[in-house]
């Protein structure tokens, strides 16, 4: 039995977390969901996540700050950015600051799973993607 992937999802749209939780849990992730950056960063301070998925554009603290904060604390954590619309500058800035990848809204759950699978592979986890495809549940 493989260790489960620890994932934090941060998006100020509550529905995003609500839907991604079961979607990612199905492929072997332990998912914690936040819809405000403050509590999410507090949680990050307390626990190391393998993967952090964060929206870029949020009310108080934006995703770039979250990215910086997470990487400062956990340099090995893979951070995946969600953007409202992918612009070159935002993507370049995120990548330059060490984001693993970014995904543009609107996206399908499977698209995020694919990115997470790649991140997991980079981290040494295996089988996330396959698990998603194979697991009939």
């Amino acid at each position: 039995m493989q260790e489960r992937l620890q994932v934090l999802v941060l998006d100020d749209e509550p529905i995003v977390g609500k839907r991604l939780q079961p979607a990612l849990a199905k492929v072997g992730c332990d998912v914690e969901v936040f819809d405000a950056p403050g509590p999410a960063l507090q949680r990050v301070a307390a626990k190391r996540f393998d993967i952090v998925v964060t929206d870029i554009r949020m009310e108080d603290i934006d995703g770039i700050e979250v990215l910086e904060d997470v990487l400062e604390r956990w340099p090995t954590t893979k951070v995946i950015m969600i953007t409202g619309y992918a612009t070159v500058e935002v993507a370049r800035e995120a990548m330059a600051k060490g984001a693993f990848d970014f995904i543009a809204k609107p996206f399908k759950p499977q698209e995020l799973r694919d990115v997470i699978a790649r991140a997991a592979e980079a981290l040494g986890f295996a089988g996330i993607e396959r698990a998603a495809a194979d697991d009939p549940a």
Partner: protein
Amino acid sequence: MADNPAAFPDAAPEVPDASSVERAFLRRPSIGIRARLALGFLSFIVFAVAVTVGAWIMLSRLERRLRFLEVADRYTMEIQQARRFEKNYFLYGGNLQDVQEHIANARRLLVAVAPDAAEVVASAELGKMRDHLGRYETLIARLVARDGAHASADRAERPAIEAELRDHGSQMVAFALELAEKERASVNATLALFKRLPVAFLAFLLMFSVVVANFLARQIVGPLSRLMATTQRIAGGDFTPLMPLRWYRDEFSTFSVALNTMMRELARRQEVLVQSHKLSAIGTLTSGVAHELNNPINNITLTAEMLKEDYGSLADEERLDMVNDLVVQGARAQKIVRNLLDFAREGEITTERLDLVEVLRQAASLAANQIKLSGAKIAIDVPSNLPAIHGDRQSLSQVFVNLLLNALDAVGKGGHVSIAAGTSREPGYVQVVVSDDGRGIPAHVLPKVFDPFFTTKSRGKGTGLGLSVSLGIVRQHGGDIRVESAPGRGSTFTVLLPAAMVPGLTENDAQATRPSASKPSRPV
């Protein structure tokens, strides 16, 4: 420009149809400037001709007088000659033939001169003269007859005839001398008049020239200064057509018609500018809307995908929750798009009673995504009991969107923008103050910010039409926009709009009660 009342057209001006104004111009009889100038000079010519003809008539009359005077002198001479021969006859007893000859000459002269003499002496006197002459002739004839018949001559008769002859003779001489004297006096009077005439003519000509020149100058300068005032009014944004003021038309009327055409074109172009700037504002808003739209779409995608994926394994209430989310997010997307579409719709300008609060709320919600994207903080302070205004909802919301977007541009991330509405210190006006704590506007640029195509933004980012178009719209509503700014201390734009007076009053009533003395003026 600030004290130009034309810069503040009424909120709903009774703008007459331009083509009907043009017809009104063309209906008037044409009296051109050229015709008036020609008329002025013609009056001079007529005057000169009249003076010439008058002088000619008087001169020819004078000529006749002189001729008459000559005749009168000759007549006097003939009479005097006759009397001299008569005296000789009585003293020395000569013959009377010479007397008769001279008298006959005198009679011929009298007959010849009669028509002219009537001017100088009364016809009764002339008749008396003729009587004297006749009587003298008769007496001379009797003397001649008496001398011919010596024998039967009555000696006593001769002195009586002599006395009578003397009497008539002296009277004739006196008459003739008086006639000549009178005539001479009359000729002298005429000559004196002729001496004064050129001076009088010159004086009159001088006065007449001054009057005509003055009249012509007024005819040209008056309309010119009116046209000049109109161009200033146009520069202030007032495109009310010129109305005919006179009962006739001339070159200035043609010019006015051309000016009206130009104003119509300008007004049309202004509309095009408003519309094209709106398109650019829509472009800016669209990026925000697109971003905002992604959220509900993303929610829908995720929810729908998961519903499809897990359909079989989900509990009924979970499925219901997901479907509900779909419905709610669908409505959210619709609302975002509808707001923008309302703004973008190219509608007729309709004046209606408006709640300013609602207009501001609409503008703020249109810019909401931009606000979110810019990372600026916005504070809205709008009292709910604000007086209503009259105006076009779309245009006014365009004004406030413009001001908001400008403020957001100026502050950038972490800046503050505030919208405060309230009654203005200008009586009868409502004001909306949009202020920011952004970089501010340098003093040398401040007077230009309302100029069309003036922009401080980089090429391609701003059209330079926002403030110009906004001011145009607000002026059409009878209001004004004022700006205060200092570099580094942010900018404050104050939009003044006339308040609708009392509920139920028509627009005209509201205008009638609007204080006109306190119209606001623009400090820039």
